[in-house]
């Protein structure tokens, strides 16, 4: 169970509420203003494939920067120390670069409108339907987790009853997505990105100043937790114990490869942002542009988590009544005066709403396009599907409100999310990567690989790990292992099934498999796309080098 301490109530005043109310008004205004741009279902679900790369890029990073991510990563910082940077530099950047450089030509170039739709054309209806259903269920669950977490935080910080927070945030999300579709979700995400920066940067600056800067932070943590706590790789040798419960191999393979590639390259809530870009070049640049802010986000998320540990060394213990998840709310209440405090509260609420909006806007697309339209009501007019999308948005938000209680069984919300992702995205990534590079992989192989990979991860986590059949020191470590299990089982099943089934004719795979091109004329690049700083390879490799350089100060 997750209860924030009573003592976190913030001394908000009228000024803070003015900032918050202004934000809610603008969010709704964006929805109304974007409404005029929604004419077809493509406008509603993919912004008409016409947004510039910097907008989709910032939305790509903001869709991931929900409040669960912010509070959860600060919590991981306080609990596991500097190891948390692995979620960014090994666990995000390589996958984002891979998505932009390698996978995006297949996604965007094949003109699919969703990630599951790619499966339909590459494999066939069985894996398509399975993946669409898994994704829809997961999205609603995660939206519910998000709402529940928000209600607890808002209750503790502002004193609103939980149901008020759930209803207000839910209805605002419902309103602006129903009105403006993906464009209004993406525009609000871009706005949210800057509001979050304006909230977290002052918090980090004031916090660092309080404890004597980076030097003071490091000295205090080494004195209280030992040198490995401020090192990225120290103590991660195989067989040695560390708080994360993982070794370098499970970090690199489990987090850095399976979990991370699964999440970043096949989670439609992310990929959808890139698919709404205005041409292939902009779509490829979307995750690459997002990678640069992503490299630097630990500075304003993980660092506050570490600061909270110095300010309140008893955080996370029963005695203090403070959970690790309270790290950022704690700093807000201890360090920020009115004014900036209003910005911080707004940033946090903005992050909750945007995190939920990303799930809802991808859920409505997959449900309408890949389930309703593909299997229930075919061949209706475009206007019919546009209306369906709006109705499904409302149903999705209401279902999210209803499922909010599921979140309560884990103490660290991040574990819960990572658990869901390790089950749902890793087998999908396995099916994608094999399907993109191995022409022979067959339709039944796609279906059975997806199903067996998902089941294997579930069995490993809930049966072998939770019931103590195998011994893994922590939930996070178990997630990494489950992800590896899902990938390996999915891959082995795919290869085995492929050998005994008939492959699809090569002509039907044009544009979907490596070494083939989509039929028809390629879209011409926009003028200016040839500029060296817009070339995907330059952007991608720079991001990788930057992430590697960031490790240096924490590895020596």
């Amino acid at each position, binding site marked *: 169970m997750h209860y924030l301490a009573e003592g976190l109530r913030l001394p908000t005043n009228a000024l803070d509420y003015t900032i918050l109310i202004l934000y809610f008004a603008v969010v709704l205004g964006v929805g109304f203003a974007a409404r005029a741009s929604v*004419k077809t279902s493509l406008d509603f679900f993919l912004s008409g494939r*016409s*947004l*510039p790369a*910097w907008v989709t*890029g910032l939305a790509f990073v903001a869709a991931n920067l929900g409040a669960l991510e912010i509070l959860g990563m600060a919590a991981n910082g306080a609990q596991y120390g500097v190891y948390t940077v692995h979620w960014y530099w090994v666990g995000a950047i390589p996958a984002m670069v891979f998505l932009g450089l390698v996978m995006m030509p297949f996604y965007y170039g094949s003109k699919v409108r969703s990630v599951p739709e790619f499966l339909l054309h590459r494999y066939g209806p069985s894996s398509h339907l399975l993946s669409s259903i898994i994704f829809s269920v997961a999205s609603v669950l995660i939206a519910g987790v998000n709402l529940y977490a928000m209600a607890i935080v808002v209750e503790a910080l502002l004193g609103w009853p939980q149901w008020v927070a759930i209803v207000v945030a839910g209805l605002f999300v419902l309103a602006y997505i129903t009105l403006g579709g993906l464009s209004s979700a993406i525009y609000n995400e871009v706005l949210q990105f800057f509001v979050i920066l304006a909230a977290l940067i002052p918090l980090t600056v004031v916090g660092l100043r309080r404890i004597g800067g980076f030097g003071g932070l490091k000295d205090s943590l080494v004195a209280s937790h030992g040198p490995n706590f401020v090192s990225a790789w120290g103590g991660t040798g195989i067989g040695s114990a560390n708080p994360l419960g993982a070794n370098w191999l499970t970090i690199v393979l489990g987090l850095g490869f399976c979990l991370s590639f699964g999440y970043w390259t096949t989670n439609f809530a992310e990929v959808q942002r890139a698919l709404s870009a205005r041409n292939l070049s902009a779509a490829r640049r979307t995750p690459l542009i997002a990678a640069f802010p992503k490299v630097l986000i630990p500075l304003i998320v993980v660092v506050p988590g570490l600061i909270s540990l110095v300010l309140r060394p008893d955080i996370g213990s029963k005695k203090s009544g403070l959970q690790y998840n309270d790290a950022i709310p704690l700093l807000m209440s201890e360090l920020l*005066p009115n004014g900036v405090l209003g910005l911080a509260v707004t940033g946090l609420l903005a992050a909750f709403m945007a995190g939920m909006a990303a799930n809802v806007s991808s859920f409505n697309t997959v449900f309408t396009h890949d389930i309703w339209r593909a299997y229930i009501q075919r061949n209706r007019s475009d206007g019919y599907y546009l209306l369906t999308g709006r109705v499904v948005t409302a149903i999705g938000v209401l279902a999210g409100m209803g499922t909010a209680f599921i979140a309560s069984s884990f103490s660290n919300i991040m574990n819960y999310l990572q658990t869901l992702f390790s089950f749902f995205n890793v087998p999908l990534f396995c099916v994608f990567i094999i399907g993109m590079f191995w022409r022979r992989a067959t339709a039944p192989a796609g279906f059975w690989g997806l199903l067996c990979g998902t089941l294997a991860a579930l069995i490993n986590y809930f049966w072998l790990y939770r019931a103590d059949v195998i011994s893994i020191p922590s939930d996070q470590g178990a997630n990494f292992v489950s992800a590896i299990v899902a990938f390996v089982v999915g891959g082995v099943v795919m290869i085995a099934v492929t050998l005994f089934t008939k492959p699809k004719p090569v002509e039907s795979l044009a544009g979907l498999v490596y070494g083939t091109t989509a039929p028809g004329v390629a879209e011409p690049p926009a*003028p200016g796309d040839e500029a060296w*700083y817009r070339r995907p390879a330059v952007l991608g490799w720079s991001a990788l080098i930057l992430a590697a350089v960031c490790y240096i100060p924490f590895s020596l």
Partner: protein
Amino acid sequence: MSEEYEYRHEVEELAERSATAARLFDVRRIIGGLFVVYGIIVLIAGYTASDADVKKASGININLWTGWCVLAVGLLFLLWMKLRPLSAPGAVPKPEPSRPGNGPGAGTGTGTGSGTGTGEG
């Protein structure tokens, strides 16, 4: 085989009828406008800050610093929009030589700019 690719034609057709490119407003106007207002509000808090406020924030008037930085970011967005406007509404969404300016280079530039800017506070 042509049936296999029907969905691609459909997407092309919908993209032609799409209204987003022509009708969607410029997000820089929203960010710029909101940040200018936020900057002013936080500056008011900064100029009326009590000693307790300053003491709480480790001895710096964080409202003043944040206010100026937020205001600057807001003005930069409005300036950027003025210097490189989107093509006129209703225009055929064909790439024109004046459009690529709102590409990623400038975008990330402003993004990181705001980050380091406020960071100095």
